[in-house]
């Protein structure tokens, strides 16, 4: 298991958003979490990445190690990556420079030598081609003035460069037109592999037509309430999130 979540609860002030999440993600699989607005999907992603404004209880093991006591940067070093729903703009910070700094910081933790600007460019270019990233975006400030689609592509580029063990993609499909969605999905599929787990968070089944998951989980009111195979997504699309659980779905937190 790359990720094992046990009874995870998270509060902001008095408001409990995650109410006992249980979930296991095996290495090398693609899982999707679906659910209505406000069900806690994005909070789960933020809490796993180490966002500090939540009061968190429960236990999360990442590759067998306790995750919740770690700083956000330490979680990145362990191999956890979050593709943000709303990528943040960093005015005046060059995109290429940002990517290289991030990669070298992670490489340092893994005992690898830093890449200089020339080596990094060669390394990054292949990955830029993968996400069909316009080269001119590399010399611009991080996400500043990027279109919605460009921002999402930039997230996937970072994923490709940082090569994490677990990548959480938070609403990566939102704001993408169909062509951009195809490009992003193609890149994400290319990044699937036996050493990497992907967790897709999405509202819509549409993304899952292009990135076919091994498992789908349904989240409502801060809990995983159903889990099933890829067909579950189709069923949700048809019946909505509130339909009664049919017999073939698994118990909460279950595995096939």
């Amino acid at each position, binding site marked *: 298991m790359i990720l094992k979540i046990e009874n995870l609860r998270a509060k902001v002030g008095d408001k409990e958003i995650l109410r006992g999440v249980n979930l296991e993600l095996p290495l090398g699989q693609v899982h999707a979490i679906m659910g209505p607005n406000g069900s806690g999907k994005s909070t789960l992603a933020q809490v796993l*990445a*180490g*966002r*500090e*404004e939540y009061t968190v209880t429960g236990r999360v093991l990442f590759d067998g190690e306790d995750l919740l006591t770690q*700083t*956000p*940067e330490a*979680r*990145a*070093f362990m191999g956890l*990556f*979050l593709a*943000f729903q709303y*990528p*943040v*703009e*960093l*005015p*005046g*910070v060059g995109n290429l420079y*940002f990517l290289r*700094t*991030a990669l070298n*910081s*992670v490489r340092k*933790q893994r005992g690898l030598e830093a890449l200089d600007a020339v080596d990094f460019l060669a390394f990054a270019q292949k990955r830029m081609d993968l996400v069909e990233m316009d080269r001119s975006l590399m010399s611009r*400030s991080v996400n500043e003035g990027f279109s919605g689609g460009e921002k999402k592509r930039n997230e996937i580029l*970072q994923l490709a460069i*940082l090569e994490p063990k677990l990548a959480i993609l938070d609403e990566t499909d939102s704001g993408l037109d169909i062509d951009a969605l195809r490009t992003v999905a193609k890149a994400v599929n290319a990044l699937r592999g036996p050493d990497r787990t992907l967790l897709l968070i999405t509202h819509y089944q549409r993304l899952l037509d292009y990135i076919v998951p091994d498992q789908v989980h349904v989240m409502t009111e801060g809990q995983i309430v159903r889990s099933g195979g890829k067909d579950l997504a189709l069923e949700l699309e048809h019946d909505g999130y509130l339909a009664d659980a049919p017999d073939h779905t698994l118990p909460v937190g279950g595995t096939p």
Partner: protein
Amino acid sequence: MSTDIGEFTDQEYKYGFTTDLDTDIVPRGLNEDVIRLISGKKNEPAWLLDWRLEAYRKWVKKPEPRWQNVHYDPIDYQDISYYAAPKPKKSLASLNEVDPEVRAMFDKLGISLAEQERLSGVTVAVDAVVDSVSVATTFKKKLAEVGVIFCSFSEAVQNHPDLVQKYLGSVVSNQDNFFAALNAAVFTDGSFCYIPKGVHCPMELSTYFRINAADTGQFERTLIIAEEGSYVSYLEGCTAPMRDKNQLHAAVVELVALEGAVIKYSTVQNWYPGDAQGRGGIYNFVTKRGLCAGANSKISWTQVETGSAITWKYPGVILQGDGSVGEFYSVALTANYQQADTGSKMVHLGKNTRSSIISKTVSADHGQSTYRGLVQIHDTAIGARNYTQCDSLLMGKDSGASTFPYIEVKHPSAKVEHEASTSKIGEDQLFYCRQRGIPEEEATIMIVNGFCREVFKTLPMEFAVEAQRLLSVSLEGSIG
């Protein structure tokens, strides 16, 4: 990560050492006799002594300004020594004869007094000023070949008295303000540059100011004259030892650009800022002004102010020539208990004159940064334009930022724009960087550097790198 912080706090101010130089220093106190003594030591002509004495008599009647948004205990002007000079072993026939102690001090500061090209391929001529006097000027001969005069102010008084007399005080008079009058009375050295008509100065000119002696003030004066159609880029850097007592630095810089001339003046100011409790540090009270005397001339100021306990300066441009251009780019950082009240004055007199002001202030810990600016469009300045942008970044809950823009417009055709913003380093931005594996400190510095980039990119390459490094070092202790 904690070891990194330790390393950085130790090197917070790496220029804080003192050098044991044999120094000629006059007793503390200020009166007409001290001024006569300084003028005598420098073998000055009578007109210059008279000019100093006139300034002194105005100064004693001037009240010390109190309107600036900074706080400090009253300065005892009788408790300062107004002249300190490292004693030369003998008079210098060549640069090789510079006192080895002085040379070693500059080596330690990273400033080479040898005439060699730097690694980057950029050649920089240096005038090195220690306490009250210039100790060496490099590349003088090579510059003389194209007619550029670059020397200490004292030398200029001896060798080019006509030029000095013509232009001294022509932009900042000897009674301009309290500190400018004090400077005019007691100034001891500084740099002098003269760029002849049509000459593009073949290298960067720079002055490195170093305060070494204790209980002294530094009062230097710089005068740059760019004749018609000439170009010069000038850089200045400053450092001082760490001392518990505040030291006063009251300088004056005058720039004159004639028709079509361009002067680019860059400052990286890193005077000792005081310690984390706010003890010691330099009071940097400076008057800098340029005169675009000729049509289509241009004066551009860039300053990066990371040092000094208190910074108080408003580099400005008087846009007299039609179509002349004034620019001001500034980054002012205040950390610990530093205070800065800085900005620019743009005075539009000529037709179609243009000015722009880009100010970035960063306040950390208890740092207080104030932007204060004056844009004046006179009734003769038909079609004048100004653009002002002031951005403040706050780090830490005890820091503060204020903006005081003054705009006076006397011609209806003027276009004046002012934009201002105050922001904090966003939690979102920090979290984003940290999620990518960039530790908090590094992320903060990256975001602050990004905030200042618009200004840094106007600096010559080597200075831009130095400015970024200084910013990092100044911020290291302030994060987390």
